C-alpha cells in the first residue's frame, strides 16, 4: 500500500512521521482480519477464537502507542490518501488523517477494547454464542478505528454504519428474549434517525466543496475561507450534529441508550461508554471547523442540546434501581457535558476532548465493575445487592476509583476534566452553562454516591452467594483503575498539561490555566452532592427515599413520558396505518395473487394432463406398434433353413465382388 500511495500521488503533509504513523492504516485492518479469522476458524481454535481478536487489538494498541509517540515528540498532523473511485467531478478516496486527537482516540479505543476482550473471556464464558460474540466485538472495534482514522466523511460514514450494525448485533446478543431484540431494534432505528440528517450534512459539505471531495481537511479549508454561503455551512453543521444526537444519545434521541443495557455488560462498557457514543462527539470535533465557520446559532444549538441532555439524564439517573441504567443515564449525562463544552466554542474543544478521554476509561471501568457485580449476584437490581465490599474486595476498590472519578473527586481523572469544562464555559462567559455544569456535578455526585452505597455497603439483600470474579475479569479492572488514576494528570495545568499540547483546535495550543476558584466551586458541588447522597442512603431503606419526591418522582419514573410520547405520538400514528395497509394488501393483493397463481397452475396442469394422455402416449404407443409391424415382416425371412442363409451369403459375396471389381 505504501508503494500504491506513492504511485497514486499521495499527499503526506508531515515530514518525519515515524513508521507507526505511516502504517496506521494497519490498525484499521487488523481487527477486520481478526474478525474474519474468528468467524471462519474460531470454533476450531482452542479456546473458542478470542485469541485472534486479542492479538489484533493488542498489536493495534502497541501501534497506537507508536503513533502517540510521534505527537509526544511534537510531530505535526499526517495525511495519506489513495484514490478509490470517481463520480463525475467527485473524487472518492480512502485515507487516514492523524493528529493529536486521532492518536489519543486510537489509544483509548484499542486499550478499552483490549480490556473488554480480555474481560469477556471471563464474563461470556459458557455463552452459547461465545465465538460469534468475539467476531462482532472485533468487527465493531475495526469500524470504530475506521471512524477515528478516516480522512474523509464518506469513509467515516462507512465505519459509522458498520458500528451501528455491530451495536445492533451486540445489544441483541441474547435475542432469545424479545426484550433484548426489541432494545437492539430500538437502538438501531433511533440512531438511524440521527444518521439521516448526518448523511444530508455530508452531502451539503460535499456540495460546498463544489462537488469535488469529502476530505475533512479540504472541507475545513473551504468553509473557513468564507466563499461558501453561511446558510449552507450552518445547515451542514446542524445536520452533522443530528448524527451526534443519535449516536451520542443526546436529547431528544437519548432514549435508546438506557434500553441498550439489555446487551451483555462488556458490550455496554465498550459501545455505550467508551467508543461508539464517543464517535458522535468525535464527529463534531473532527468537523469542528464547520461549526466554527457557521453562524453562531449552530454552536448555541449544540450547547443548549448538551445542557438539556445533561440535566434530563442526570435527573433520570437519580431514580434508577438497575445499576447498569444508572451508568447508562450517567453516560448520557457525561456525553452531554462534552457536547455542551463543544458548544462553547474553540475554548471548550480541548476540555471536551479531555473529558472524552478520561470518561472513556472510568466509565469502561464502572461498567466492567458493574458486570463483575452482576456476574456475582445474578441480578441488575441494586435492591438485591448491598454489602458486596466484603465479598468482592477487588471489584469494590476498582469500582470505587471509577465512581470517585465519575463524581469528580480529586485527584481522580474526572475531577480534572470536569474542571476544564467549567473553566472553558467561564472563560467564554457562558454563565448559565457554568451553573448547569455545576448543578450537573452535584447530581452526578449524588447518584454516584447512591449507587456505591446501595451496591457495596450495608448488608447483602439478595439470594445468591456473591464471590469475587476470576482474575481474567479483575485484572482489566485494575488496569483501567490505574489508568483512571493517572490520565487526569495529563490535563493538570500545574504539571504542564501535556494533553492540551496534543489536542487543540486551530494552529496553536491554548495555554493551560489552573483556576483555584473553579476547582473550589467544583469540589463544593461534589461535596454537596455526595454529602446529601450519603445522608440519605447511609442506611438502606424501603421504599427508596427518592420516591418522596412525589409528582417529580412519577415523572422521572416514566422517563418524562418521552418513550410514551414517541410511541403514541410518532410510532403508532405512522406504524398503524402502514400496518393496516400492509394487512389489507396482504389479504387482498398478495392472497389474490397467490390464489390466482394456484388457479392458473390448475388450468395449466389440466391442459398438460390432456396433452400427456392424448399426444405423448400416442406417440409412445405408435412407436411400439411400428416396431411390432416391422418385426412381423422381418421374421418371415428367418426360416431356420441353413441353405437359404447360404444363398444370402453367396448373393452378398457376388454383390460385393461386383462392387469391388467394378
Amino acid at each position, binding site marked *: 500500500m505504501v508503494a500504491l500511495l506513492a504511485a497514486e500521488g499521495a499527499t503526506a503533509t508531515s515530514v518525519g512521521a515515524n513508521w507507526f504513523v505511516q502504517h496506521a492504516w494497519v490498525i484499521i485492518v487488523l481487527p477486520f482480519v481478526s474478525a474474519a479469522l474468528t468467524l471462519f476458524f474460531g470454533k476450531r481454535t482452542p479456546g473458542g477464537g478470542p485469541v485472534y481478536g486479542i492479538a489484533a487489538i493488542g498489536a493495534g494498541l502497541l501501534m497506537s502507542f507508536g503513533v502517540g509517540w510521534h505527537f509526544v515528540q511534537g510531530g505535526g498532523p499526517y495525511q495519506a490518501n489513495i484514490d478509490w473511485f470517481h463520480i463525475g467531478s467527485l473524487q472518492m478516496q480512502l485515507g487516514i488523517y492523524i493528529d493529536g486527537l486521532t492518536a489519543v482516540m486510537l489509544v483509548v479505543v484499542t486499550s478499552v477494547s483490549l480490556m473488554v476482550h480480555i474481560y469477556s473471556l471471563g464474563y461470556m464464558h459458557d455463552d452459547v454464542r461465545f465465538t460469534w460474540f468475539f467476531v462482532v466485538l472485533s468487527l465493531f472495534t475495526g469500524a470504530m478505528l475506521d471512524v477515528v482514522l478516516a480522512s474523509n466523511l464518506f469513509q467515516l460514514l462507512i465505519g459509522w454504519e458498520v458500528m451501528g450494525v455491530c451495536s445492533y448485533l451486540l445489544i441483541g446478543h441474547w435475542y432469545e428474549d424479545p426484550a433484548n431484540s426489541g432494545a437492539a431494534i430500538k437502538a438501531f432505528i433511533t440512531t438511524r434517525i440521527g444518521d439521516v440528517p448526518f448523511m444530508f450534512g455530508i452531502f451539503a459539505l460535499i456540495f460546498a466543496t463544489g462537488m469535488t471531495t469529502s476530505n475533512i481537511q479540504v472541507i475545513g479549508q473551504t468553509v473557513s475561507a468564507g466563499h461558501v454561503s453561511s446558510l449552507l455551512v450552518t445547515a451542514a453543521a446542524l445536520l452533522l450534529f443530528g448524527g451526534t444526537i443519535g449516536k451520542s444519545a443526546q436529547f431528544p434521541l437519548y432514549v435508546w441508550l438506557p434500553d441498550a443495557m439489555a446487551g451483555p455488560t462488556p458490550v455496554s462498557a465498550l459501545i455505550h461508554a467508551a467508543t461508539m457514543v464517543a464517535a458522535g462527539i468525535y464527529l463534531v470535533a473532527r468537523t469542528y471547523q464547520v461549526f466554527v465557520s457557521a453562524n453562531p446559532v449552530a454552536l448555541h444549538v449544540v450547547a443548549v442540546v448538551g445542557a438539556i441532555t445533561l440535566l434530563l439524564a442526570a435527573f433520570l439517573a437519580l431514580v434508577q434501581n438497575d445499576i447498569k441504567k444508572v451508568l447508562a443515564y450517567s453516560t448520557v449525562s457525561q456525553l452531554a457535558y462534552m457536547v455542551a463544552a463543544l458548544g462553547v466554542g474553540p475554548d471548550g474543544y480541548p476540555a471536551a476532548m479531555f473529558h472524552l478521554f478520561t470518561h472513556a476509561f472510568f466509565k469502561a471501568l464502572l461498567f466492567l465493575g458493574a458486570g463483575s457485580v452482576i456476574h456475582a449476584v445474578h441480578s441488575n437490581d441494586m435492591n438485591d445487592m448491598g454489602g458486596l465490599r466484603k465479598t468482592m474486595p477487588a471489584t469494590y476498590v476498582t469500582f470505587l476509583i471509577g465512581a470517585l472519578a465519575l463524581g469528580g473527586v480529586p485527584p481522580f481523572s474526572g475531577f480534572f476534566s470536569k474542571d476544564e469544562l467549567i473553566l472553558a464555559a467561564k472563560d467564554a462567559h457562558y454563565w448559565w452553562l457554568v451553573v448547569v455544569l455545576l448543578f450537573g456535578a452535584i447530581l452526578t455526585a449524588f447518584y454516584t454516591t447512591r449507587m456505591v452505597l446501595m451496591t457495596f455497603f450495608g448488608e447483602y439483600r439478595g439470594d445468591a452467594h456473591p464471590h469475587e470474579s476470576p482474575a481474567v475479569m479483575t485484572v482489566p479492572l485494575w488496569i483501567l483503575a490505574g489508568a483512571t488514576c493517572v490520565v487526569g494528570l495529563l490535563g493538570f495545568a500545574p504539571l504542564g498539561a501535556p494533553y492540551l499540547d496534543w489536542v487543540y483546535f486551530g494552529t496553536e495550543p491554548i495555554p493551560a490555566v489552573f483556576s483555584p476558584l473553579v476547582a473550589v466551586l467544583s469540589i463544593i458541588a461534589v461535596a454537596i452532592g455526595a454529602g446529601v447522597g450519603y445522608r440519605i442512603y447511609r442506611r438502606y431503606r424501603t421504599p427508596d427515599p427518592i420516591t418522596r419526591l412525589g409528582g417529580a418522582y412519577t415523572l422521572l419514573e416514566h422517563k418524562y413520558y418521552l418513550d410514551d410520547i414517541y410511541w403514541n405520538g410518532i410510532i403508532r400514528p405512522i406504524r398503524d396505518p402502514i400496518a393496516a395497509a400492509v394487512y389489507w394488501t396482504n389479504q387482498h393483493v398478495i392472497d389474490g395473487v397467490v390464489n390466482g397463481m394456484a388457479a392458473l397452475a390448475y388450468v395449466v396442469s389440466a391442459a398438460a394432463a390432456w396433452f400427456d394422455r392424448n399426444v405423448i402416449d400416442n406417440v409412445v404407443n405408435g412407436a411400439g406398434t411400428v416396431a411390432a409391424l416391422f418385426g412381423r415382416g422381418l421374421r418371415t425371412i*428367418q*426360416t*431356420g*433353413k*441353413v*441353405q437359404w442363409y*447360404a*444363398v444370402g451369403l*453367396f448373393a452378398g459375396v457376388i454383390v460385393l465382388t461386383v462392387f469391388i471389381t467394378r
Partner: protein
Amino acid sequence: MIRLPLVLLFSTFLFSTGIYGVLARRNAVMVLMAIELLLNAVNVNLVAFAAQLQDVTGQVFALFVIAVAAAEVGIGLAIVILLFRNRSSINVDEVDLLKW
C-alpha cells in the same frame, strides 16, 4: 506345362459344382462333400498361381487348407451322425428349429 487359363476354368467348374451342391442338395453328407469341392477349387487356384509365379507360398497355403478341411469334415460328419441318431434323418430341410 498346362496353361493357366485352363486351370482357372477347371477350378471355376469345381467351385460352381460345389456351390450347387451346398445350396441344392438335401442330404447333409452331400452338402459336406460339396464344401470339399469348394475348398479344393481354391486349392487348385493356389497351386496354379504358385507355379505360375514361382512362389512356394501358395503351395504351403494349400497344405494348410487341406489340413483344416480334414478337421472340418471330421466335425461335420460327427454332427451328421448325432443328427441321424436324434432325428433318424439327415435331410437339412428338416433341421429348421433355429427360427422365431
